[in-house]
């Protein structure tokens, strides 16, 4: 709304989904600008998957509108977008090669096959049964299927859930390369680092409504001034806790304080003779943001 006079690639007004009388997604208004990576962030059960599946055209909403480039979504939509579901399966007994063949036949203009295989690193597993792939390999295959039609808009629903750290990093690289080709990406995640690493803009979702929305850095700067200062409890031994640190709370072996003016707080600590050995200074994360906004942990429940 603020700066974009370009038409958003995807926008919703009053998007609502109801299960058993409960609004799982409640009157959602979203505008996703073209060419960015947009993250839907929230704990399990926040309505992320329900929201993204309505946007994908898989799940009919109970109320509200969805516009793709200003037009209502129809079956032709699937020619132009790529979708990677959180839980999905492929027909049994097919090799990676067969799966690529199958999906390439669905589209009017499939991507160049060799290019796609190279892009998603599938060369070595083409002859393997897709059911015998590792988690990372499977996600790369599913991403290749989603990219098959060289889509303008790519949906990724929890794409790295359950992957080991190495596979996650590899997958992030892939997502960045997709983004660098000018495609718009809409991803859901409950990993904060993933959102911080990949997303240009995020919307934090809880109980079906958006709590806040913007660039991750901007949001953190808005909600957290300064940084979190942590000092080992032992450093305060035999000393009265200085007034500057009165608001601190003990967490394990550390006293921690959310300081608005980091340099001022530190110099006052030095002045009162507290050792700074073992000092940690942390900026707030999206986890902290979520905690602050909702009063409960992002990964809670």
């Amino acid at each position: 709304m603020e700066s974009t006079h370009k038409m958003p690639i995807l926008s919703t007004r009053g998007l609502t989904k109801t299960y058993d009388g409960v609004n799982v997604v409640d009157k959602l208004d979203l505008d996703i600008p073209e060419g960015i990576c947009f993250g839907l962030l929230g704990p399990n059960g926040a309505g992320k998957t329900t929201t993204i599946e309505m946007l994908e055209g898989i799940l009919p909403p109970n109320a509200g509108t969805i516009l793709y480039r200003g037009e209502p979504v129809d079956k032709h939509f699937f020619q132009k977008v790529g979708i990677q579901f959180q839980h999905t399966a492929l027909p049994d007994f097919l090799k990676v090669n067969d799966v690529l063949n199958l999906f390439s036949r669905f589209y009017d203009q499939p991507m160049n096959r060799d290019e796609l295989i190279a892009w998603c690193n599938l060369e070595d597993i083409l002859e393997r049964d897709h059911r015998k792939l590792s988690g990372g390999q499977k996600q790369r295959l599913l991403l290749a299927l989603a990219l098959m039609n060289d889509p303008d808009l790519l949906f990724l629903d929890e794409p790295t859930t359950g992957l080991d750290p190495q596979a996650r990093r590899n997958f992030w690289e892939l997502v960045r390369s997709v983004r660098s080709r000018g495609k718009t990406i809409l991803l859901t995640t409950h990993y904060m680092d993933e959102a911080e690493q990949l997303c240009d803009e995020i919307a934090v979702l809880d109980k079906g409504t958006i709590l806040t929305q913007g660039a991750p850095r901007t949001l953190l700067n808005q909600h957290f001034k300064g940084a979190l200062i942590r000092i080992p409890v032992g450093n305060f031994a035999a000393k009265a806790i200085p007034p500057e640190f009165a608001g601190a709370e003990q967490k394990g072996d550390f006293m921690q304080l959310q300081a608005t003016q980091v340099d001022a707080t530190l110099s006052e600590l030095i002045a009162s003779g507290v050792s700074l050995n073992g000092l940690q200074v942390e900026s707030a994360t999206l986890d902290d943001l979520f905690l602050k906004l909702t009063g409960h942990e992002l990964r809670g429940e």
Partner: protein
Amino acid sequence: MMFWKRFFGVLTARNLEFWRDKESLSWNLLFPLVLVVAFAFLFDSDDRTLVTVGVIQEAQLSQEISQREQTEQREQTEQREQTEQREQTEAVASANSQEIFVPELASLDFVEQVIYEDREQALRRLQQHQLDLVIAPGEQRYWLNESSPGSALAAELLSARSDNYAQEILSGQALRYVDWVLPGILAMNLMFSCLYGVGYVIVRYRKNSVLKRLQATPLSAFEFLLAQVVSRVWLVLATLIIVYLICNAIFSFVMEGSYLLLILLAFVGSVCVSALGLLIAARTRSEELSRGLLDFIAWPMLLLSGVWFSLDSSPEWVQQLAQIFPLTHLLDAARAVMFDGAGLAEIFPQIVVLIGMTLLFLLVGARLFRWVGDGR
């Protein structure tokens, strides 16, 4: 153009699945083979103690037969395949129309006389050893089957009592129970393969979200479903042909009609039952529910459509009920082709019924179909 590309994409993938699933594939072939062989040996003995004589009823005389007798007669002539049941019904028939039987044999308790209006049919029964002798009293002629020992005996019996009859000689192999039950077993295999192979697979694909993934492409439901049916139908046809050929090498089945017609029937029948499978799998994502529904359709159909035994002596309401099953019509037509040499014209009604049922199943199934389905 895109339609066929997408259709063939799914068809190819589905065929790869069949081909690579060696266990299911071999079971598909082995199961009907084992059944046919088992039935051949289980029901091998044909210990008829009676002499059965077919009496050709003259056209003028048949007008005297009451409506009721005509009905019984039709039932009777249609059920010659079943030895046990035949005895029962024929006894009723002989009690009702004593006068028109061959008088020379009337006093013999161990001789059953069965009325036939259709000479061709009576002679075919004789060729297939269902009858020991066919007599046309009006023409003073009788026919015997030289390859049947029972026939020679019956001819001796008749000539000992009367020398008014001229003899004609036919030959032909016996119609054994295995001949009769073969189309039943093949049809059963067709039914299970089509119902579960189409219905259950779709529900499983819905449950584990394969369908959801396919939905998120330009693939239409019609293209997908058509590919499921076509892939299954051709697999079933190939299976049936292979099983028939192997069994035929062992048993050399009775086959009076056209093989092409039989294949046409198998095609129409398997499309029809596959469409029924689609209808059942249109919405549910519960494998348990779909299994229950499929069983609910399959087992009554298995018992009531004449797979194992003829329904001719069953109560009227059972016979009426059996008409709702595609398999009943398929088996009627298949047996007519195999044992009576029926042509396309004779089995046309059954083909029309099967096609009608197919259209109905497809129409309702397509309306109900959901990729993701109920019960999220």
